């Protein structure tokens, strides 16, 4: 029951990407593939989508790099302001998005920074950062430091040890964190809305369009993203399952 409940709006959104609608997309008026072929005819949709992807990629790169570095430092080193640092990373996650959005907007306003894609990227990096630290930190904590010691014993310099041993072992955690960041950034509306200026992202496009009925193109893009994401997750799950089975066989 709960599963069906969770999936109803998804099915609805996908179904309406096939709706034969000319202007509004509220009432079902027949099945068509046309929307899927003419997605970018309503140019603003694809432009908004492009902006969202660009913002997601840059913010993810920034947040993943900074977050992984913090996660390594938190697990591997003891330093004076360790608890304060932990708190500083924890707080953005417990701050409501409206407050983060309004705070950044107030800051940009006072500093006279014009709002646009740049400020959206800065804002997204901020809220993704904490999630990256949490995700990667769990991975770092489960690593056996003996492996790195072995690398050092074999005369690997710190750079070699990091790139040949530490980094590959951290990679699954980093990839998970990056995917999470991208998803959070791509779907964010609230923080974006406070800091976007005149630039439009996919969610802000949908929000503006909501007043007059969503064009089917928005449903097409959302459905395409959904299928892609589900495919990625399923592939990841299946490879993980296959690897477990192989390990079980070998062990």
């Amino acid at each position: 029951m709960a599963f069906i409940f969770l999936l109803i709006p998804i099915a609805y959104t996908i179904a309406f990407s096939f709706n034969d609608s000319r202007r509004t997309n509220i009432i079902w008026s027949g099945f068509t593939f046309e929307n899927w072929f003419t997605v970018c005819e309503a140019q603003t949709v694809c432009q908004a989508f492009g902006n969202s992807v660009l913002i997601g990629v840059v913010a993810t790169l920034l947040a993943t790099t900074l977050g992984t570095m913090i996660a390594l430092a938190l697990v591997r080193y003891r330093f004076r302001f360790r608890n304060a640092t932990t708190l500083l990373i924890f707080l953005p996650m417990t701050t409501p998005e409206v407050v983060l959005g309004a705070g950044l907007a107030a800051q940009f306003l006072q500093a006279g920074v014009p709002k646009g894609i740049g400020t959206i990227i800065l804002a997204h990096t901020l809220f993704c950062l904490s999630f990256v630290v949490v995700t990667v930190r769990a991975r770092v904590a489960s690593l056996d430091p003996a492996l790195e010691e072995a690398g050092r014993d074999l005369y690997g310099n710190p750079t070699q040890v990091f790139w040949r041993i530490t980094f590959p072992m951290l990679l699954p955690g980093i990839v998970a964190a990056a995917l999470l960041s991208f998803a959070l950034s791509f779907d964010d509306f609230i923080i974006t809305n406070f800091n976007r200026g005149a630039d439009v992202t996919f969610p802000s496009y949908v929000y503006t369009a909501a007043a007059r009925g969503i064009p089917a193109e928005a449903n097409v893009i959302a459905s395409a993203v959904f299928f892609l994401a589900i495919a990625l997750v399923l592939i990841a799950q299946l490879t993980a399952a296959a690897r477990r089975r192989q390990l079980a066989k070998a062990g």
Partner: protein
Amino acid sequence: MAFTAFSSSTAAVEPVARRKSPIALFLLLPGIFYLILFFVTPLISLIITSLQAPDPLLFGQYVNAFNWQNYVTVIETYGEQAVRSAGYAALATLFALLIGFPLAYFIGITLRPYPLLQSLALVLVIAPFFISFLLRTLAWKQIFSTEGPISGILSSIGILGPGEAITGTAFSVIFGLTYNFIPFMTLPIYATLVSLDLRLLEAGNDLYGSPATTFRTVTLPLSAAGVMSGTLLTFIPAAGDYINASREFLGSADTTMIGNVIETNFLVLQNFPAAAALSLLLMAFILVLVALYVKRSGTEELL
């Protein structure tokens, strides 16, 4: 362990940490600098803004001041919306728990002998994350709308009078909040249940505990951490949300929540001091809840 959904159930084998090192500083500084620049200073900006007073010369402009009156004014003006936000968010959290807990239990314990089904079920729970939050909410709006399938049934059996709609009511807003935040509740609970030792449940059974007793004395205490972080993860975004309650989505003028008020004051009315004061009050309220949580589960397990 707070936010167990994201840290998974890895029992942290903290390696012997090394002493101070310039590397630690090098790793930390950029990120910490970023957080100070884009999290701490914005909060200070908010505090400064919340104390501003209207410029006596230029209409619509504000000057820095110590105008504490702003706080009194917003509490008097928007107290109703603040109470409503807390109420809606609390109800949504409760409903999300009522749906999310059995769901997490089913995936984490019932499906445990079938790893493939378990992964699949987990994908279904996070599936809503992969489709736009706004479109999901709009889908519910259309399902609930007067042209939608549910209104017809409800008005034919007389629950809904002619011309009445489900959208725009407290019911639809709480419904939307519940729906949107169920995964946030389910995942942390799942994370605690998935690593729960099933032998403990068997033991409860062997000791003549009824299923209900075993659940109350074994399962529930062992999943308490997940329930706690799920509750926070649901309540915080729900209390600040302004999508579900906004008029273009599931709400109406009668369901305005604090998020809507902040948004309107900031982006539409450009009453920055009021928006800032409200934001800080909301944050203070959330921080009190988090502090209570930390007091219960300890700071070491914050992340």
